[in-house]
């Protein structure tokens, strides 16, 4: 009984603000409910049918989210691993570099997006002024759908890569140094050491980072809200932003709840994959 005194604040809040709402969103997703008309009607799976079969916007949004993830995850992980390999051993300046690469992680996404939006303006933007010096006429980055998507991906990678970098550094530092020393005595090259020893030993970390980063990429909201607002021509309209837009801009509560359920299923599946991979790694 005493134990429940310890956990009750947490458990009660959890019931009210998490479990209850989670059940409610299942019900909401099966209603036609427009906040403006203040009427709710049970419609079964009509919202899901609307999303998956009828509304072309939905698949456009899914496509955007998948492109965002496919661009962000490999770029983020490759950069994180490269930086970690360079910064896992002490040398003059190592603290400086770690501090610099991690700094955007502690900065608010809104502030980061504000500054990059400023740098990436079409006319008079700093990036384009620099490109003009070397004779390149830069595009209007955030006004053309494909460039906008690329810009959002790259600035997001710069913002978040520090987190994966330190996870990789921690994993690299846990590898006993004898392994590498022994391989070197056998005459292995740097690349061989990486390929045959370090990379396999990093595999569990790589899998975890991959799933965490993928889930994170499906949740991205504030960055896109501030940088592109989902535009231009819905070119950066991703799932989390679409939920916000449908629910809190257009007040299609039922439809937005169905979208939230779909997001829930996607994240759940990714998490199950992660747990399975972790088990496999532990064997």
């Amino acid at each position, binding site marked *: 009984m005493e134990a429940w005194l310890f956990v009750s604040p947490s458990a009660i809040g959890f019931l009210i603000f998490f479990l209850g709402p989670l059940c409610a*969103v299942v019900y909401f997703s099966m209603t036609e409910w427009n906040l403006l008309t203040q009427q709710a009607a049970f419609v079964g799976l009509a919202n899901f049918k609307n999303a998956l079969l009828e509304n072309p916007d939905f698949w456009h949004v899914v496509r955007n989210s998948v492109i965002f993830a496919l661009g962000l995850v490999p770029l983020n992980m490759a950069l994180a691993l490269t930086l970690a390999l360079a910064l896992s051993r002490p040398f003059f300046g190592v603290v400086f570099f770690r501090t*610099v690469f991690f700094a955007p992680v502690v900065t608010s996404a809104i502030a980061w997006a*504000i500054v990059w939006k*400023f740098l990436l303006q079409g006319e008079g933007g700093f990036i384009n002024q620099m490109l003009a010096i070397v004779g390149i006429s830069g595009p209007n980055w955030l006004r053309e759908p494909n460039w906008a998507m690329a810009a959002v991906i790259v600035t997001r990678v710069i913002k978040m890569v520090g987190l994966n970098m330190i996870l990789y550094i921690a994993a690299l530092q846990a590898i006993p140094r004898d392994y590498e020393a022994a391989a070197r005595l056998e005459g292995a090259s740097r690349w061989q050491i990486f390929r045959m020893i370090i990379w396999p030993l990093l595999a569990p970390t790589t899998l975890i980072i991959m799933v965490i980063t993928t889930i994170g990429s499906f949740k991205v909201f504030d960055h896109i809200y501030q940088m592109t607002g989902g535009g231009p021509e819905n070119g950066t309209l991703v799932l989390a932003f679409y939920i916000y837009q449908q629910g809190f801009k257009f007040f299609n509560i039922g439809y937005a709840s169905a979208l939230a359920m779909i997001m829930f299923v996607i994240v*759940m599946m990714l998490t199950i994959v992660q747990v399975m991979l972790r088990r496999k790694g532990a064997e």
Partner: protein
Amino acid sequence: MTQRQIRILYRTCWTIALLIVAIPFMFPFVWMVSAGFKSTTEIFGAPTLIPRVWRWQNFIEVFTYQPFARQYFNSLYIAILVTVLTLIISSLAGYALARMRFAGAGLLMLFLISALMVPEEVTIIPNFFLIRSMGLVDTHWPLILLPVFGPQGVMATFLMRQYFLALPKELEDAGKMDGLSRFGVWWRIALPMSRPAIAAVAIITFLSSWNLFLEPLIFLSSLEMFTLPLALSNFNDSYGLPLWNLQLAATTLAVVPILIVYLIAQRQIIESFALSGVKG
């Protein structure tokens, strides 16, 4: 060349490469501060790192354009409150989950783990109606309650539990022998030994509250109630276009203090994120 010279050359090349990669990480901060001091005309002229005319006025207009001091204070007090509440609640629950046997413990763990996985976007719609029915729209309550009891709070609970599990049990047993209650053992023995975990939870919780955006965007409507990220995104003229120099001056005011704290305590802060990242 000798072995030593090759090593030095190799190191130098690496350092130069790293410095180049570091530019897009550092430069936005530098340019933010610089542009925050410029006039509207200079901001779009030929790029200069040092403003030709230092327009200190920007930093005054930030406070007259909207109640920025009030908004700054809102962010600060909310972040502190959320941090303190999260620490109390998560360390209590984490301790019980680590050290006590009770009916429903397994079920509670299962629920908490599932909460870790569910993004806040999934529950935000019902939570909006819940908060509205409590009459708490356009107050700071949802910005405090939702993070404390949401995924962030759950993660803190797990972090604390993990740390308590690794503590030597003998000291707590000795405390019990000396007549301390469970609560006394938690407060006098377990907590003082958990400083690193407490620091990690405090740092991550503070930053995530300070940077919170979705909840303020959805729940707040009056300018005096805004928090910093929402206020920053609100420096627009009547056509909805950004007032760049004011916006960047305000962003400087919001970001620089955090950066200074980060530079002083970078080791501690980076370690905290590593700790939570491995667990999460």
